[in-house]
């Protein structure tokens, strides 16, 4: 579904990603991306969704080269994302913002999203005045509208406790299986990723280190070295 070929991203003279190759296949699979701080996880997500122009390399989506497509085009083709720093419409009510996006994307099953993200009790409240945990769910709900085929999530557990993160992950995994979505999740909570993801990719210092099932990755000594390296 998504193929990343020789992708490099630079911020000025600093290289954030170097020649990353990665393939995300399969519907109904949750793909986790982990790595120590500064590994380039968020940059990779930014490059996939069009927020950051790669300096070289390509992004293919369903076989098509979309490297130069706009963010909104990608979204209309079913590539949605949520944000690490909650990005919602603070001054609109929950229902107003969900409905606006649903109408635009032609999704007539908004109630599904509301139910899945358990937002039914907050519909008429202004998003900016709701508890942070609920705002995170609004953020994910905005990404779920329009039945996306590929869901990109940037640290969905940011600001949540370990149990909340784990619950959110299980939630997302169920959703992905049930709706046959492909999902890519960047997360620094390694435990949650190993517990819920079907595939795991490890980045280190802007390079692709390893990709495999959680069991394989867990046993990979290079991965352990990378994490120990930053811990030491």
């Amino acid at each position, binding site marked *: 579904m998504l193929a990343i070929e020789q992708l490099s991203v630079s911020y000025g003279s600093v290289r954030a990603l170097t020649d990353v190759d990665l393939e995300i296949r399969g519907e109904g699979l949750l793909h986790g991306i982990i790595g120590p701080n500064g590994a380039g996880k968020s940059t990779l997500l930014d490059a996939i*969704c069009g*927020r950051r122009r790669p300096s070289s390399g390509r992004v293919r989506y369903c076989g098509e080269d979309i490297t130069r497509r706009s*963010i909104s085009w990608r979204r209309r083709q079913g590539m949605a994302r949520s944000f690490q720093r909650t990005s919602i419409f603070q*001054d*609109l009510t929950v229902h107003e913002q969900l409905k606006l996006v649903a109408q635009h994307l032609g999704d007539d099953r908004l109630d599904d999203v509301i139910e899945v993200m358990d937002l039914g009790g907050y519909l008429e409240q202004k998003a900016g005045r709701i508890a942070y945990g609920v705002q995170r769910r609004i953020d994910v709900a905005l990404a779920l509208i329009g039945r996306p085929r590929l869901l990109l999530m940037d640290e969905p557990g940011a600001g949540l406790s370990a149990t909340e993160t784990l619950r959110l992950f299980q939630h997302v995994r169920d959703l992905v299986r049930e709706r046959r979505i492909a999902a890519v999740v960047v997360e620094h909570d390694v435990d949650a990723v190993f517990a819920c993801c079907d595939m795991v990719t490890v980045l280190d210092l802007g390079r692709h280190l390893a990709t495999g099932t959680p069991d394989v990755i867990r046993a990979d000594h290079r991965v352990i070295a990378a994490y120990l390296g930053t811990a030491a």
Partner: protein
Amino acid sequence: MTDDLHAPATATVGGPLSRLSLGIVVGLIGLGAGAIVPTYLASDFVLRLGSEGLLLGLLALSVAFLMNQAGLVALGAASIYGGAGYLFAIGMSDWGLTPTVALCVAFVILLAYAAILGALIVRTKPLAFMMLTLAAGEMISHAVLLEGLRDYTGGADGLVVRVNGSVLGVDAVRFTDPAQFWSFAWIVTVLVGLALWAIARSRLGAVLRAIRENEERMRFSGFNTFVPRLIGYVLVNVVAAVAGFLHVLNAGFVSPESLGLFVSTNTLVAALIGGIAGSLGPILGGLIFSFAQDEFGARGLTQLLTGVAIVLFIVVFPRGVVGGLSSLSRRLGWRREAS
């Protein structure tokens, strides 16, 4: 389908439908009474001041709409307002067009200008947008004074505009009569106010407000965020052009002052005085400004007070007269439904 999102400031009373019908009834009564009653009660002098206030109110409507819906402050309203007069005059005297054709040609040129400028500047962030509209406004007021265009624009003296015959089917003489012009200006202003009120409640308004709130998330929700803002920008410039045409038809001349920064800042002040949320505020603000200018202008204080008003209203009364009164009435418990 279009009333599912309301402007935050007004989403307090009643349901959308009752508010809509109430608005229509009040609007129709106001439209008729306001057009006729003052012409019997007020002197020509007062009517002239009132008409000037309405034209300023029209401009203020355009500025307030963009501020409230898109979060963008335009400091260049004058270039369209004055430009309308200049193009209309040049069309008739230099291109030999009939008044109606000259008006249409001028309108098309203004639309093209607004669209091109808008395409360049609506992408930028609000602060840069404000700086760029100021710069573009100054560009136009310099352009009119260019030596090479003196034959067309009359340089610093401006142009006397003689309209022979009728404009859009209305005898041009009628625009110069204070009472009849008041009625025209009133009807146009109220209709424009209603139209902008309706647009604010339409899908375009909802999209603009959402872009104002969080532009990036809108793109990540599949929206094109450039086109709606461009449409909004061109739309408010149409309103400014209408005000400019009315002004030149009434005054019979155009001067470089009509393009100047002070017209733009006066407009801003009128919008701030009345309050930018809704259509009532800017119109009221224009009228207040016009009568206040008559009071203080003779002593040369207008511009000083303009500056004072900007600071005062932003710092102390950011919601303007209308916003202030409505929250006051709410606090006194006149509207029970309000939260």
